[in-house]
């Protein structure tokens, strides 16, 4: 099928973004990421975007596709094209570095040094959290997009699991820039590509805090 891929471009020093249009041939079962990659290889090598695993586990390729946050490697062209048009923009809530690349340090820099990356699923089974750390929840969250100090949905969701396992949370989590800044918009849970339910976990963590079941350190 013929696809008109419209990409928001921005480079260091530009006063305003520019929207480039690329006419490409695509198979409806291809991923949006495949298209972006093809454009960068064949049509414009200066197009910058983040990607790694290409199968939905690393969280690198989150973008806003026709207005909706998605992991582009598992988003089919046929499912999202509107009259053959696909508009691709960088995630909201993060500073744009270049084109579709954003600076996710506001999220990663808030990880405690002793962050637990693995959950114990059964006696002899451990698993990396389903959360792929893509930042889509930040892009969807009206608070994260307007309040730079807000810890953010995924960081708080991880803190909930920590609270359940160890009975404690770091002070910033229980502060104004932590769980108490969430205003129940739940767009984070709606947009999360792995159903990690950050919104619900923030609220559950609040209940634990209100009940005094968690120590704030």
């Amino acid at each position, binding site marked *: 099928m013929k696809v008109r891929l419209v990409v928001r471009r921005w480079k260091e020093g530009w006063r305003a973004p520019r929207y480039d249009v690329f006419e490409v041939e695509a198979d409806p079962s291809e991923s949006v990421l495949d298209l972006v990659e093809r454009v960068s290889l064949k049509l414009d090598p200066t197009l910058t975007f983040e990607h790694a695993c290409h199968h939905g586990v690393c969280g690198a390729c989150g973008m806003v596709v026709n207005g909706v*946050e998605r992991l582009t490697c598992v988003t089919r062209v046929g499912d999202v094209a509107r009259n053959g048009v696909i508009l691709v923009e960088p995630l909201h809530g993060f500073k744009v570095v270049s084109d579709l690349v954003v600076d996710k340090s506001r999220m990663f820099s808030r990880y405690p040094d002793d962050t637990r990356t693995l959950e114990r699923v059964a006696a002899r089974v451990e698993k990396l959290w389903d959360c792929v750390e893509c930042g889509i929840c930040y892009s*969807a969250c009206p608070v994260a997009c*307007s309040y730079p100090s807000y810890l953010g949905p995924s960081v708080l969701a991880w803190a909930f699991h920590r609270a359940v396992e160890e009975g404690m949370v770091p002070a910033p989590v229980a502060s104004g820039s932590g769980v108490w800044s969430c*205003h*129940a*918009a739940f767009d984070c849970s*709606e947009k999360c590509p792995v159903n990690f339910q950050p919104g*619900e976990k923030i609220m559950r963590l609040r209940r634990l805090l209100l009940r005094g079941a968690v120590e704030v350190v």
Partner: protein
Amino acid sequence: MGLGEALRSWLRVRGRSAEHVSFAVRRLAGVVLALYLVVHMVDISTLLMGEHVYSAFLQVFASPIGLVFDVVLWVFLVLHGALGLYSALVEAGLLLERRKVLLAAAWAAALLLLVVGVVVILYVMG
């Protein structure tokens, strides 16, 4: 982060879920109600200027324009209240598993109260 960016993130509805739209409506209604409260304080204080000023104001509110204003105010009150009840429950961590049903119920209740209220305002008080 500019004010424009902040407002856009709250009010951007394209691509947003029903949950977010409800949040935006609730917030907007809250702001409008807060503003109304301020205006209301001002118009009540006209009492201090004497009975005839206050009566003049009451005349405005009894007029058709006043009724429209009442209806609009009722809409915002109902939306903020019903959606506020929804958020009060989920923000306390209750009924999270059924939040979609709860949200639908909040909207249904809001619509019902809206209709009842408009009827009351237009036919009883009008």
